[in-house]
Structures are given as C-alpha cells and as structure tokens.
C-alpha cells in the first residue's frame, strides 16, 4: 500500500512528457492518454481516501531517507480529501475541454494539464516546506501555459500579469523559507512543528515574521485581500476550462494556510500567540466584501464569476481564521462545495458565452439556442454559489456560521457572511435575468429564414458531452448536500487529525526510532 502514496505525483509526471514528446502531433492519442491518466488518478485518489479513512497518518520517505533529513510525503485525511477533489475536478474539466474543442486551440494542452495535476497533487501530499515551494512552482509553471492557452492579446496580457504576480510571490516564499530555516534549522513540516513549539519566546521575532510572510504567500494563491487583485483579471481571461480547473488553485493556497498554520504555527504555539488568526480574519472579511461588491458591480459574466470565487474564498477563510477544529471542518466542507460550484459556473459560462454575439457582456440580446437549458443550469449554479438551499452551499455556510457562533469574532463574521450572501444573490439574479430572461422578451429581428439556415456562424446546440461536465459538477453539489452527514463526519475527523499535531509529528518523525 505504502508506495501508492506517491502515485498521484508520479503518474502525471510520467504521462505529461510522454504526451508532450510522443503524442504532440496526434490530438486523438493525447486525449486518450490524458483521459486514461486522469481516470487512473481518480481511481488512485479514491483508494487513498478510503485508506486514509482509518485515521492513520502515513508518511512515505522518498529514497528511504529518514525524516527530517529526507523528503517525506504525508497522507492523512485532509490530503486524501484534497486529492480526491482534484482528481474529480480534473475529470470534469477534461471532458469539457475535449468536448468543446478547447484543447485543440493551442498546443500541449494535455501535457500542461497533467503537469498541473502533478503539481497540485504534490502540494497536497508533501510533508516538507521547501518541497511545497517546488510543487507550487510546478503547478504554477503549468498554469502559466494553460492560462495563455489559445493565445490572443488580452489573454497574453492578463497572463503576463498573472506570471509577474506569482513570481513575486515565489520570491517572497523563498524569503519566508530562508527566515524559517535560519530560526529553526529545518524545513520538514513535522520537525518544524516540534522546533517552533520548543522555541523560547525571546527568539520569536524571526519565526513570527516567517509565519506572516508564508501567510502572505499563501494568500496570494488563495486570492485574499490585499493580494486578491490578480484573480478577476486572470480567471476572466483564461480559457473557461482552465478557469474551472483554477478553482482548485485558490484552494491550494487555502490548504497550505490550513496545513502550515495549524500544524506548525497553530494556535497552541507560544511564540505566535494566535498571530495568524489575528491577521487572517480581517483579510478574509474584506475579501468577502470585495467579492460580493464585485459580483454586484460586474458588467461581464466572467468577471462576475471571478468575483464570486473571491467572495467564496473570503467566506471560507473566515472559518479558517478561527483556527478551531469545528470551524476548519466547516471550511473544508465549504471548500469542496465552492470548488465544484465555481467549476460548474465557469463551464456553463463557456457554453453560453461562446453562443452569444455580445460574448460575456451582461446585455440583453436575442435568446440563443437552448436558452431554457442554460438558464436552468445557471440558476442551479447560482443557487450553489450564493449559498441557498437545496444545494450544498447553504449547508456549507450554515456549518461555518454554526462554527463561528462560539468565537469572539461572531458578530462581524455573521454580518459579513450574511450580507455578502445577499449581495451575491442579487448580483447573480441580475446577471441571470439579463442573460436569460430579458432576452426572451426581445422582439425577434426579421431575418430571412433561408439565409439563417445556411449561416455557418449560427450557434450550434450544445451536444450531450458538452453539457455533461456542468451537470456532473452540479450533481456533485447535490450529492454533497444529500450526503452531508457522512461527508462532514469524514471532514470532522480530518480536521481533528489536523489539529492533533503531535500525531502528525509522531507519524513523520517516529519512524527513525525504529530504524
């Protein structure tokens, strides 16, 4: 069993160069390989999730070097859930990209896609802070390629901004790691957890600045205020399937904050005295406000969806900032939910926007084909994102509110989440009615039916395969709501395991005692 832990990293890492070098001229072959790889990844991740359900933290020593000298991969419930989420999302996005032909609009889509999966899976599995940096770089460099996939002026400019932003973030990451190493002499997360807890309070300055620098770096990825401004430009100009895949990228940042700032810089660490939560809470609340106001003010569909992603990150990080097991488990539930609801909306937006004359501009125009179907899907996606029953967004927000009830920030968190939800609902309702409802009231312009029939530019009805991914994402939201009990039981156990940092340390460092 133990070698399976590294499979989610190795499988895409081997597959991607093969696709890039051997299958680059044959898109059919590349599609088949990419599908096979992603399905295998999903199977492996399901297996790992089942294996982790027992509650044992398994550490995998690369090259059999004992921790903290070698690099370790660590599988616990939290990593397993994130892996499963990644592989499910990847499968949905891949079907969409192939069905709509996005993958053929530029080169190397499938190779970059697999590299992206490798980076994401590695970031979720690694037990070493420097290794986390390396996997961040892997997933970022793949995301740069995916972001500018298909080309075009605006997309390249937005891509350039995204790259510059993330390179600056990477540099800060290195500064933070250097500071941390200078203070503690280790970069293994479990070893850090021990060393930071043993540190005398007089030497706290370096560790405190390292903790905050790391939080800024992860906040760049998670799009938290004040470093959230790259997200709307990037997501709204990225190819839609890529934007849907990027729904997991913000969660990588969130995962890193959850992992590092609970295990290493947790609330029980004397030298930090709850410093991360103090800064994270206001940042999360402002992020939520920006997201909600952005949704209300957006003039185009893609920025509207991007701002709703910003808002959902804010909601989630409010719960993370409490740094209690209950709140973290609520945040994890909301994390799973918001990934799929963002993906569903971006995929749907791609189907709609590519069929409209005015693109994603929020402006009434003649209804395009399958207006009813798209309207229904948008309605469902918007319900999910805004957090109304019966989909899982409502339960997610309810869990977060319930977990925040006992914290000192209760009032402000309640106000922010409830007002933010209201604004999001209004924004989505406005967009939906302009896009799908007002258009049906418009007088059809007289067109010669014969000319219309042969018009090759006329939008085609979406095929079954093109709609299936959106349906699948929405079905997962429904499933998440229907099976909220078992899911949140698993997530409760995951966050319980997360906050038991001594268990983590024992699993990683305990082995060298035997050997």
């Amino acid at each position, binding site marked *: 069993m133990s070698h399976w832990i590294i499979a989610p990293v190795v499988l895409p890492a081997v597959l991607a160069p093969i696709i890039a070098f051997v299958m680059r001229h044959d898109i059919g072959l590349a599609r088949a390989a990419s599908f096979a790889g992603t399905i295998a990844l999903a199977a492996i991740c399901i297996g790992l999730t089942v294996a982790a359900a027992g509650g044992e933290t398994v550490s995998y020593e690369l090259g059999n070097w004992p921790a903290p000298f070698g690099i370790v991969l660590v599988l616990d419930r939290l990593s397993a859930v994130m892996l499963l989420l990644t592989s499910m999302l990847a499968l949905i996005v891949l079907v969409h990209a192939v069905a709509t032909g996005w993958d053929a609009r530029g080169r190397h889509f499938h190779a970059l896609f697999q590299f992206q999966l490798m980076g994401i899976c590695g970031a979720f599995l690694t037990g070493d802070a420097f290794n986390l940096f390396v996997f961040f770089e892997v997933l970022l460099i793949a995301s740069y390629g995916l972001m*500018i996939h298909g080309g075009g002026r605006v997309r390249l400019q937005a*891509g*350039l901004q995204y790259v510059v932003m993330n*390179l600056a973030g990477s540099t800060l990451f290195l500064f933070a790691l250097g500071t941390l190493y200078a203070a503690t002499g280790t970069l293994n997360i479990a070893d850090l957890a021990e060393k930071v807890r043993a540190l005398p309070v007089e030497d706290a300055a370096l560790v405190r600045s390292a903790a905050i620098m790391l939080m800024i770096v992860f906040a760049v990825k998670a799009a938290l205020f004040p470093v959230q401004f790259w997200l709307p430009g990037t997501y709204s100009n990225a190819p839609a399937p890529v934007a849907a895949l990027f729904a997991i990228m913000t969660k990588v940042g969130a995962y890193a904050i959850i992992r590092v700032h609970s295990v290493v810089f947790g609330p029980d660490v004397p030298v930090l005295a709850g410093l991360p939560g103090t800064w994270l809470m206001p940042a999360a609340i402002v992020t939520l406000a920006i997201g909600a106001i952005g949704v209300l003010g957006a003039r185009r569909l893609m920025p509207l969806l991007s701002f709703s992603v910003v808002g959902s990150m804010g909601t989630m990080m409010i719960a993370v900032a409490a740094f209690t097991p209950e709140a973290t488990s609520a945040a994890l539930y909301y994390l799973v939910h918001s990934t799929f609801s963002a993906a569903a909306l971006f995929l749907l937006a791609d189907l709609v926007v590519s069929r409209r004359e005015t693109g994603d501009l929020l402006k009434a125009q003649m209804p395009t084909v399958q207006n009813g179907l798209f309207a229904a899907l948008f309605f469902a996606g918007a319900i999910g994102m805004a957090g109304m029953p019966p989909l899982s967004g409502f339960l997610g927000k309810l869990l977060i509110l319930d977990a925040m009830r006992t914290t000192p920030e209760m009032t402000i968190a309640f106000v922010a989440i409830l007002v933010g939800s209201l604004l999001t609902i209004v924004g989505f309702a406005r967009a939906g009615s302009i896009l799908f409802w007002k258009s049906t009231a418009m007088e059809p312009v007289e067109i010669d039916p014969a000319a219309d029939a042969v018009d090759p530019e006329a939008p085609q009805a979406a095929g079954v395969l093109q709609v299936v991914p959106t349906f699948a994402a929405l079905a997962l939201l429904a499933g998440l709501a229907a099976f909220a009990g078992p899911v949140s039981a698993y997530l409760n156990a995951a966050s319980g395991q997360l906050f038991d940092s001594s268990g983590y340390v024992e699993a990683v460092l305990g082995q060298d005692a035997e050997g």
Partner: protein
Amino acid sequence: MELLVASSVGVLTAGGVYLILRLRAFPVILGLALLSYAVNIFLFSTGRLLVNAPPVLNKYGDAVNTDPLPQALVLTAIVISFGMTAVLVMIALGAFLEADHDKIDMTDEPEAEAMGEERGA
C-alpha cells in the same frame, strides 16, 4: 562580511521592487531577476556565514563545516528562477507582439472598450 551580504540583499531587493513597480515588461523582468538574486544570497546566509569551510562533515577532526542544506536550496531556487524567467520572457514577448506595447497593467481593458461602445451607441 555580514554587512556586505546584508547590504547586498537589501540593495538588490530595493532595486528589484523599484523595477517591478515600473510596470513595463522589461524592467519588471529585470526586477524579478534582481529579486531572485537577492533571495539566493539571502538563502546562503540562512545557514550562517562561514568563509573557507567545507559543506561536508569531517570525521577526522572537529574542523568547522558550513551548513550544506542552504546551498542545495539555493541551487534549486536558481534552477527554478532561471526556468521561470525564460517563461516570463516568452510570455512578455508574446504579449508585446500582440499588443504593440509592453505595459503590464491593462489600461485598455475590454471593459473600457465595451463601455465606450455603449456610450457611443
């Protein structure tokens, strides 16, 4: 020694940040390169500064040795930042050729165009 390393990190960082804030592709690329030099030197210093000490343990005596781990980290960081700079140059070049200017901020966003259209109509 400490003063030299510390001030070079500081000067490189300051120059890098200044150049990034110019918001033009070429200065930004140079600025990021300067920042990555700064961080590389900084990483070296995290293993404590020692001159003429080997990065290996000496089993024949208590000779001083310097910490080898930061050197490995710097090596990784150099490789990564080199690759990233190459990617950045290519993307910047593509953006420059498509847009005919090298501004990083998107002043002529499609939103502005669309709003102009609306106003004109």
